[in-house]
């Protein structure tokens, strides 16, 4: 890719990225605003970050969000990896196409519908809404992303590596932990990070399934903004953006590296 950008391409690129990221950039910039008025620039200051950390309600919401994200991402990673293994490994079992479709469905399902149906389900089984219902709801939402990432790695996995391990005396379980798992680990970590960030910034499904004492950061921010914009919320959002960006970038790098490695080791 040494070809130089033409003027037209350059313009398209700038406008495209501006369209996508200008609002976010604006938010980040205003989180460093010295003025209390959100839309008036009053000089550079980090005071709102200080205020944010002293705001107990926001900090409490952040702590809830973090716990939910960790729990649901962990669950989603285990379940998603198992699903990926089943879908790639056990040949063409009865209903495989249906299963594949069903695993991917939550990716394209409108969040309102996922949120609503989960709410109805939790009410039906009599589970009190709160921390656990959000965590479970997020697990169903994010599991498919883990499956997609891990499955794409398993497709390029050289099965003779596992055969070689078994041939050398390793039973199936030890083969999995000594050979398969280390080689697909980067894609599992990438899947975890994706699940984590998705859970972190979800508003719709969380608000359907939330209950007393389980206010996540996105819910808190949303309700605060309805009462009026505050620079503290800008600061909280800026931090959230930072974490999500980091998660996605690391996940992408891990997936890329493991794909490159698979290519290099394939003969």
């Amino acid at each position, binding site marked *: 890719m040494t070809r130089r950008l033409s003027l037209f391409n350059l313009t398209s690129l700038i406008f495209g990225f501006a369209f996508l990221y200008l609002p976010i950039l604006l938010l980040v910039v205003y989180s460093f605003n010295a003025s209390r008025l959100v839309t008036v620039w009053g000089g550079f200051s980090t005071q709102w970050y200080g205020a944010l950390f002293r705001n107990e309600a926001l900090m409490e919401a952040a702590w809830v969000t973090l716990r939910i994200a960790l729990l649901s991402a962990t669950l989603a990673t285990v379940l998603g990896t198992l699903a990926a293994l089943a879908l790639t490994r056990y040949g063409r079992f009865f209903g495989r196409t249906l299963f594949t479709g069903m695993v991917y469905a939550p990716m394209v399902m409108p969040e309102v519908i996922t949120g609503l149906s989960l709410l109805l389900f939790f009410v039906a089984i009599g589970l009190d809404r709160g921390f656990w219902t959000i965590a479970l709801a997020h697990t169903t939402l994010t599991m498919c992303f883990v499956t997609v990432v891990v499955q794409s790695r398993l497709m390029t996995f050289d099965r003779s590596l596992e*055969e070689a391990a*078994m041939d*050398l005396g390793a*039973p199936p379980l030890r083969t999995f932990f000594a050979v398969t798992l280390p080689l697909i680990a980067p894609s599992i970590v990438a899947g975890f990070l994706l699940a984590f960030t998705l859970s972190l910034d979800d508003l719709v499904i969380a608000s359907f399934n939330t209950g007393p004492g389980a206010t996540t950061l996105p819910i808190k921010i949303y309700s605060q903004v309805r009462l009026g914009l505050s620079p503290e919320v800008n600061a909280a959002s800026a931090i959230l953006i930072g974490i999500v960006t980091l998660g996605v970038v690391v996940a992408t790098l891990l997936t890329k590296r493991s794909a490159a490695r698979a290519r290099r080791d394939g003969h």
Partner: protein
Amino acid sequence: MGAVRRAFAPWSDPNAKPLISFENITKRFGDAVAVDNLSLNIFEGEFFCLLGPSGCGKTTLMRMLAGFEQPTAGRITLAGQDLAGVPPYRRPVNMMFQSYALFPHMSVEKNIAFGLKQDGLPKAEITSRVEEMLRLVQLERLAKRYPSQLSGGQRQRVALARALAKRPKLLLLDEPLGALDKKLREATQFELMDIQHELGMTFVVVTHDQEEAMTMADRIAVMDQGHLAQVATPGEIYEQPKTRFIAEFVGDVNILEGNVMGQENGLWRVQTPSADAPLTIDDPDEVLHSGQAVAIAVRPEKMVIQRDPPGPNARNVLTGEVWDIGYLGDWTVYRVKLASGAILRVTRANASRFVENPIDWDEQVYVTFAPNAAVILAE
């Protein structure tokens, strides 16, 4: 060593116990039959080659030995033990994979130590065994490297060392030299033979390369469409092929089709459109009847090409013109077109550096062969 090798022929000893025994093995994948009711014995210390075109079932046969496939019907025994239901990780068999299948996240020494660790050997013994293997394949200096940092030839050696480390009763090698270039392949062939001889192990090699099989094997099993076409020493396979498929698959051959006229003084007389006079063939083991359609197989190096007409008592004279000449250095290949339209391949060793007035393109030539140079193959 040559003398030792010639004396080694357990397959011709009726009292010898085979190490591996395939008994009426059939393997089907859905409707496709990969191996069809095949029986075969392999003896301890043998260097055994499974040779055949791709899709002939040779790899399936090997994977059944390793335990990755189960036979649909029949029994495989190893040293008298029935292998049915024994998983790959409990078989005293190791395999060198065609792709080498080196673990990319482990160094060379960790790769070689992997099998020994599974056996729970003490650390000191693992270390010394790994060192011994590294010495055997001459890779001592690369112990800490990772597979991605090695050349193709080095990877091949690591794969071999890893498969040998557990000192299996039986080593399986799936196209072991397929990924190497020609020079390296030839050197490695002899190295494999030396290692096998030194360790006294039984080797079963799958290959589609007949030259490789001829060089290395004590015996070769030629496979075709799930059947054994012939199991014999390289010499027998080459000089006494049982069928036309084997004659054509192993080495080059000229096939002359004809009909049996009868027997005279123990020699067969065969009428063929390729020659004016009937051919005389010395192949006493064949049982043929008059009028039977047969194919006569003659190897190119057993034919003699000459410009001057042979004497009136000469047998097996074919006439034609030189169609092509290929100079290979050690050999010259002549392609001779007969009046019948058939093209013969005749080779001549270039024993001297200069030949006066050599046979040239488009020349009329005579091609002859001795009665015992040919093999009759029943059609």
